[in-house]
């Protein structure tokens, strides 16, 4: 064995080791990796099925995969079965045909469990500790919150997965990010992960799987952990893991596809073993103190171009990337971040549109109104989240505040449907990427937590939510 790994193994290494079908390079570095589950969407899967059809190959284990329509569908409150445009309709029609012909379960846009794939999979109980889950979407890292190794793959690898239930996989290095201390009032897991990305940069974890550990991580809910693992890909990580605990088991128990009875007991006994050994060797260790972290916003066009809300737009000081980002964002060096006006506010995405996110936003919005000139939208993470929010009366808070209460989908996180920023519009967004044009050509995105989006919507500018306070 690789002497570098020593006697103690990391959680990542344990999960990979348990899924090696064949060693491909004689070193255990490149392996044929068994994949337990996948989820398909309508836009990255079509070409994989076309290749399977051309080669007349069946899907190895159709029941291991779920299809969910999420990227191109409408989020209008009164949406029907049709997609907003013809090309999207062609994609969902082909998705339906592929699911039917290859025997894969699919949630179409009107299915009661439809939603964003990474919200739906845990809701179904399909994400379980120790699993390997690869899917055609970079934010598959979300599943690390359950102690499952999730990672994104391209369409060629979707095809490889569907035909063989395996992937040709290169082992990653191990990084541990330890976050101790307590989060302050108004500071949430989004702020933790945005701080990490700013600290290590957009490629700081490229080639690594990150294990998150420490008191601050242990104190988080499973949903809050999902936000952290989700955005780990924004610093390059191809896997993010948190050792599963009782909170995770409680979040899985009773879900539609969770194990039951004797199998449940057997599963939990195994899941309790899923943690890094004492003395396991990490190639890189990073420590953060949660108590020093403030609400964060991005000012640039890469997720690592972020700062606490109390900070100022940076000076380029000869750095072409900063100058280019500020030019695109139309920001003046030295301006206070909290003075930046917005025209749009968006709460949604696989990063921050689960029920706890909506509760935090509603706590800010209760009894308040969206500022004049701001268009504000909420696209819940799933149809189940939407129903739960309505059962709690949150929809009435959002509507009274002037937010559009929409249906579920990826929506304006990447604007593949008709939810798009106009050129020059500036948006406070609970999503994961502030790339140029991400939310619409010429659109300007500021990433932040859902409560911070709510605060920005109310004030009409980027705002420190702690100064606004929550209303019970």
């Amino acid at each position: 064995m690789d002497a570098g790994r020593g006697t103690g193994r990391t959680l990542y290494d344990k999960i990979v080791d348990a899924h090696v079908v064949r060693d491909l390079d004689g070193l255990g570095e490149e392996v044929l990796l068994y994949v337990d589950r996948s989820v398909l969407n309508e836009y990255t899967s079509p070409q994989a099925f076309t290749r399977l059809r051309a080669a007349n190959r069946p899907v190895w284990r159709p029941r291991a995969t779920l299809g969910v329509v999420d990227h191109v569908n409408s989020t209008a409150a009164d949406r029907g079965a049709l997609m907003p445009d013809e090309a999207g309709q062609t994609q969902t029609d082909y998705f339906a045909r592929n699911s039917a012909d290859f025997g894969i379960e699919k949630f179409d846009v009107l299915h009661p469990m439809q939603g964003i794939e990474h919200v739906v999979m845990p809701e179904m109980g399909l994400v379980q500790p120790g699993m390997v889950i690869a899917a055609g979407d970079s934010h598959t890292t979300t599943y690390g919150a359950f102690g499952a190794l999730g990672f994104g793959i391209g369409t060629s690898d979707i095809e490889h997965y569907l035909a063989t239930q395996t992937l040709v996989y290169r082992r990653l290095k191990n990084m541990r990010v330890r976050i101790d201390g307590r989060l302050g009032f108004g500071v949430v897991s989004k702020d933790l992960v945005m701080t990490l990305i700013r600290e290590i940069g957009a490629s700081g974890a490229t080639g690594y799987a990150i294990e998150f550990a420490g008191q601050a991580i242990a104190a988080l809910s499973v949903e809050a952990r999902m936000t952290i693992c989700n955005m780990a890909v924004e610093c390059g990580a191809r896997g993010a893991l948190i050792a599963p605990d009782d909170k995770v088991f409680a979040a899985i128990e009773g879900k539609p596809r969770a194990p039951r009875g004797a199998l449940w007991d057997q599963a939990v006994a195994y899941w309790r073993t899923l943690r890094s050994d004492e003395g396991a060797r990490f190639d890189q260790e990073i420590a953060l103190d949660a108590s020093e972290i403030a609400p964060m916003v991005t000012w640039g066009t890469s997720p690592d171009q972020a700062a606490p809300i109390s900070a100022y737009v940076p000076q380029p000081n000869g750095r072409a990337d900063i100058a280019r980002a500020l030019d695109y964002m139309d920001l003046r060096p030295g301006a206070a971040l909290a003075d930046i006006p917005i025209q749009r506010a968006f709460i949604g995405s696989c990063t921050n549109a689960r029920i706890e996110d909506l509760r935090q936003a509603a706590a800010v919005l209760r009894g308040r109104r969206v500022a004049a000139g701001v268009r504000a939208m909420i696209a819940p993470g799933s149809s189940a989240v939407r129903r739960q929010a309505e059962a709690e009366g949150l929809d009435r808070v959002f509507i009274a505040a002037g937010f559009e209460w929409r249906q579920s989908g990826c929506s304006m996180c990447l604007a593949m449907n008709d939810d798009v920023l106009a050129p020059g519009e500036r948006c406070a967004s609970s999503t994961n990427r502030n790339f140029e044009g991400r939310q619409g050509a010429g659109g300007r995105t500021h990433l932040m937590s859902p409560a911070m989006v709510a605060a920005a919507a109310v004030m009409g500018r980027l705002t420190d939510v702690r100064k606004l306070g929550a209303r019970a």
Partner: protein
Amino acid sequence: MSFEPFIVREGLAAAMPVANVDTDVIMPKQFLKGIDRAGLDRGVFHGLRYDASGAPIADFIFNDSRWRAPRFLIVGPNFGCGSSREHAVWGLMQAGVSALIGTSFAGIFFDNCTRNGLLAICAAPNDVDALLARATEGPCAMRIDLPEQTIVAGDLKSRFEIEPGRKRALTSGLDAVGLTLEHRDAIAAFEAEHFARYPWIKP
């Protein structure tokens, strides 16, 4: 055969030194609505190639008549970050790009390159700097020899490292799914043991 094997290729190289070029920039969302791989060459770097009115931006390398369609791109660090969309790789290849040379690439994009026969070379920073300087001056004739793992551009000669498995895949161009299915019995045997050990996992 799944793509044309990469052995020795020659052509003009262009410089694109910006850091963190993401796949949204390489292939914007409006080109992701197809169900096939065709027609993506017109989407590549669309926001950098055309202005809001649709007119070509003259000084962008893909519009500059000295290059027009560069065969090789010398790129900045973390090229291909962000979305998993393989459309970015399909589009680059359809636009004539055959290899990328940089210090680092984002993981999913890097794998997508290999699966399609696009050679992404992680080269030493000083070699990338030298090539960037050369390609920034103007069109730079370059020769990449994958079996020998060498890049030659005029008097600049450098060697690069590549994992043996990736080199084999790129120089063979063989269908990866077909190769894996040769081990179908091993997969089935693994699966039986996996489900026996972790029975709740069986879907």
